[in-house]
């Protein structure tokens, strides 16, 4: 496992100092991924039994978001050599030369340490430890090791994106429970279908960059089968909070309806002819998967708020 960044940045002469502004540094944090992290961590924090001061809760979610952003920056530092080869990522601040790799590494490391320290000092050290592990898992286990070595990269790597609700839960209870693991499972099982839908219509990009995504290694047919399998598992996991009794019936119905839509959307991808150029069903599944996760966690959030303020489940 190489622990260095292979990307050779253009040597900056004295008159070629960094042109990256504050927005570029913010882009290093992967704000779209961060928004999902904020949302799912908030749901974990609100669903957990117990109390947390609202301002401390705000700091907790902020620290988790910054920690996730820091791992995004470390990912962009390490992956600059392949990001430049893919249309989706070529304009990122490092491959486009607006921010130097060294500045990106320093930024990512500083924010990692800072976010973990803030979470530990203001909330508790279990959640801080979980955040540190999440950053390590995404930056080292996924980015440096799995991403370039196995087509199951995002299956295992998906754990990094699934940890925020567990951390949010631990912020309140100072423990890990079956309930928080159930929230983890929803995101963990959702990740493969979401990313393989993207990998289907971006297979050329991934191929050019040498990233062994499932469609490039095992072909479209095998990928489509796996997508349907994970869509079914995701749909089942969506109703588990209701079956376990810590989310209401209405929440379970929303999750079930969205889950059926997820399976249907994945089935359309399965029926899509191999070699299809436009890949419309795959693009639709990618969009729907985002809607699914947002919908299920919104239902859980509403349920948690109603439980907190009215003492009943919906």
């Amino acid at each position, binding site marked *: 496992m190489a622990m260095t960044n292979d990307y050779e940045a253009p040597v900056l002469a*004295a*008159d070629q*100092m*960094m*042109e*990256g*502004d*504050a*927005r*570029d*540094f913010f882009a290093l944090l992967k704000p779209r991924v961060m928004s999902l992290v904020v949302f799912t961590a908030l749901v974990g924090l609100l669903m957990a039994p117990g109390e947390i*001061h609202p*301002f*401390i809760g705000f*700091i907790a979610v902020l620290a988790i978001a910054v920690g996730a952003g820091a791992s995004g920056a470390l990912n962009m530092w390490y992956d600059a050599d392949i990001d430049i080869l893919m249309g989706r990522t070529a304009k990122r601040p490092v491959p486009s030369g607006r921010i130097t790799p060294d500045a990106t590494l320093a930024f990512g490391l500083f924010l990692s340490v800072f976010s973990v320290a803030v979470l530990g000092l*203001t909330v508790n050290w279990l959640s801080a430890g979980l955040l540190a592990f999440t950053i390590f898992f995404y930056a080292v286990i996924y980015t440096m090791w799995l991403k370039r070595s196995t087509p199951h990269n995002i299956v295992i790597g998906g754990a990094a994106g699934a940890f925020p609700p567990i951390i949010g839960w631990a912020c309140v209870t100072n423990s890990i429970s079956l309930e928080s693991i159930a929230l983890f499972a929803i995101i963990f099982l959702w990740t493969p279908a979401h990313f393989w839908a993207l990998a289907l219509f971006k297979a050329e990009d991934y191929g050019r960059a040498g990233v062994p995504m499932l469609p490039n290694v095992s072909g479209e047919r095998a990928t489509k089968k796996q997508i349907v399998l994970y869509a079914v598992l995701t749909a089942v996991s969506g109703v588990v909070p209701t079956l376990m009794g810590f989310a209401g019936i209405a929440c379970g119905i929303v999750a079930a309806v969205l889950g059926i839509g997820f399976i249907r959307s994945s089935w359309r991808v399965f029926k899509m002819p191999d070699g299809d150029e436009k890949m419309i069903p795959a693009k639709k599944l990618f969009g729907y998967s985002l809607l699914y996760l947002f919908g299920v966690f919104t239902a859980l959030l509403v349920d948690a708020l109603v439980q907190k303020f009215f003492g009943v489940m919906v």
Partner: protein
Amino acid sequence: MEHVELSEQQKKARRSRSVAIAVVLACLAVMFYVVTIIKVGPGIFDRPM
């Protein structure tokens, strides 16, 4: 001694970074103040000198 002459674009980017750092530091100062009050409580003002 060699001086680095920044272009207008670079000066603008540096100004943007400086403003962002100032805003973040100000927010952090307020944040830590509020956290201290919440964690230690108003009793922090009553400690014996």
